[in-house]
């Protein structure tokens, strides 16, 4: 190879790499535009909201900024109550999922009893049942149990999801038997094996699962919409949409409520991004 061909090879690599950066960062910018727009509009005074010109933050000199939309939301809507409701429902569902999913995954992998193969088969098969197919009969069952407008009516169907069982089953199955045998010889009870051996080893996967389930249940839409018909019981997603459909002509308000509604999860995301990403990647790896 001559000098000039090597140089042109290096040059073309450099150009290609530069183009790649332009593409990836350009895409990232485009994906961030809705965020910037939402933030900017949420601070824009009502009289300027009819102006389609975007109003970027920080504002140019002389462009007025207002907190009126946020003040209105905090004073005149139940957005704080909705946040608390969502926290209780998503947190309660997550806690239950982590506890009972890990219990059954433990039972299916570390205890030996007749029929466990069939039970595992049924749980795996239920993956094929799309969630929405069940909403009509599920609604009747939840109504029969008197759980309409109750947190439990949202939490319990969410806890029935087989995803956590499946992920934990795969992880527990791969924990070497030797740990447990040694513990049994030292006189550990089944409960002690679960709390002192399995759970500590499973900590990373449990926290990833918990985080994913928290986000998933925080964001759930159709089911809470059906079960929670009382305004004081709404979760954030339901409250947000109701507010929107009630005042279609107040864009600043919608943008402010979008910010308030996503802020809690965005903070969670910034703090625990790695775990959340891992929870998603685990699903892909098992698929």
């Amino acid at each position, binding site marked *: 190879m001559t000098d000039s061909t090597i140089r042109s090879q290096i040059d073309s690599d450099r150009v290609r790499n530069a183009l790649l950066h332009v593409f990836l960062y350009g895409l990232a910018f485009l994906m961030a535009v809705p965020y910037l727009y939402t933030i900017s509009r949420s601070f824009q005074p009502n009289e300027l909201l009819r102006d389609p010109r975007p109003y970027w933050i920080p504002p140019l000199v002389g462009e007025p900024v207002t907190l009126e939309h946020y003040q209105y939301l905090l004073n005149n809507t139940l957005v704080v109550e909705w946040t608390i409701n969502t926290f209780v429902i998503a947190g309660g569902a997550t806690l239950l999922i982590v506890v009972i999913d890990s219990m059954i995954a433990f039972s299916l992998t570390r205890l030996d009893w007749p029929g466990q193969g069939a039970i595992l088969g049924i749980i795996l098969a*239920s993956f094929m049942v799309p969630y929405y197919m069940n909403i009509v009969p599920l609604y009747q069952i939840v109504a029969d149990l008197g759980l309409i407008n109750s947190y439990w009516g949202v939490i319990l169907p969410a806890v029935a999801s087989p995803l956590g069982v499946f992920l934990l089953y795969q992880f527990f199955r791969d924990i070497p038997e030797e740990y447990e045998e040694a513990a049994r010889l030292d006189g550990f009870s089944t409960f002690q094996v679960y709390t002192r051996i399995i759970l500590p080893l499973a900590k990373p996967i449990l926290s990833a699962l918990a985080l994913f389930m928290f986000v998933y249940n925080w964001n759930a839409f159709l089911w809470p919409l059906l079960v929670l018909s009382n305004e004081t019981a709404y979760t954030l*997603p339901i409250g947000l949409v109701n507010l929107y459909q009630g005042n279609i002509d107040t864009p600043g308000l919608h943008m402010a409520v979008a910010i308030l509604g996503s802020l809690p999860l965005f903070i969670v995301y910034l703090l625990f991004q790695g775990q959340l990403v891992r929870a998603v990647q685990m699903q892909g790896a098992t698929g």
Partner: protein
Amino acid sequence: MGITNRIPGGETSANSKTVMGIRKETIEGILWSLPYLAIFTVFLVWPAVRGLYMSLHTYPNKFDLSQTEWVGLQNYVELFQDPVFWNAMEGTFLFVGISVPLLVVLGLVMALGVNKNVAGKRTLRAIYFSPYVLTVAVVTLVWAQMYSTSFGLVNYYLGFIMENPPGWLTSANLVMPALAFMTVWWLVGFNFVIFLAARQSIPERLYEAAQLDGAYGWRAFKDITLPQMRNSVVFVVMVQFILQFQVFAQPYVMTQGGPQDSSDTLVYYLYRSAFSQQQFGYGAAMGYVLVAILIVIAIINFKVIGDSND
């Protein structure tokens, strides 16, 4: 405790005890499974069974669901003759047909790009994945403003390059593409992180070996990357088909199925039938038809992308 539990031959204590002739481990196994199994049975298995029953009945009294009337397959027959159902089917397939290929291809391109030698991988990943943590309620609220015909961001910029930019949510031809595009923005990060993990787990030596044979670029992608990532591609395609097929909130919040029913979807119609018109048997039948369609799609998917390249 202690010496009495040590059974010759490595048997552990839990295996050996019996209560009334049943092994203690069997009892423990069932007890440990019971909390999940109880909830699973009541809230997942039982509805699936009861849905079948409901789909074969009508409910003449909307306020008293204990009154049922056996109608056999009539709900299903009516469904297949219902033009609203077929229109919703068309809308759903249009939405799926636009969103799923974009979600998969763009997710793959982003993952392969970030996997290369680029600066700021963590920042890119954080931005790409971030819309996924938003609730669909926020996504629809924000994009309803972005798409607004006269005051929206999209048309403000389009106004510089064209006269009278279109009404994205008010034009029958554009509304589904607009909803699908928004959904790609919202969910592509999920596919991106799965593809990124799959790409990173391919051993680099495979590429080094291929380079010796002169396989770069497109050929390396076709011969190494795609086959090695096949499992994750199959998974992502399946998940996205199932998810996007059940699209509901986007038309429910943003368009109410309009204009002229052009953004109606199957789950939105199911929701209206059962919960606005109180036709519970009809809604349950639609649920079963949805499952049947998804099973057919799953089989086609596995046939098309699951078996090739073996």
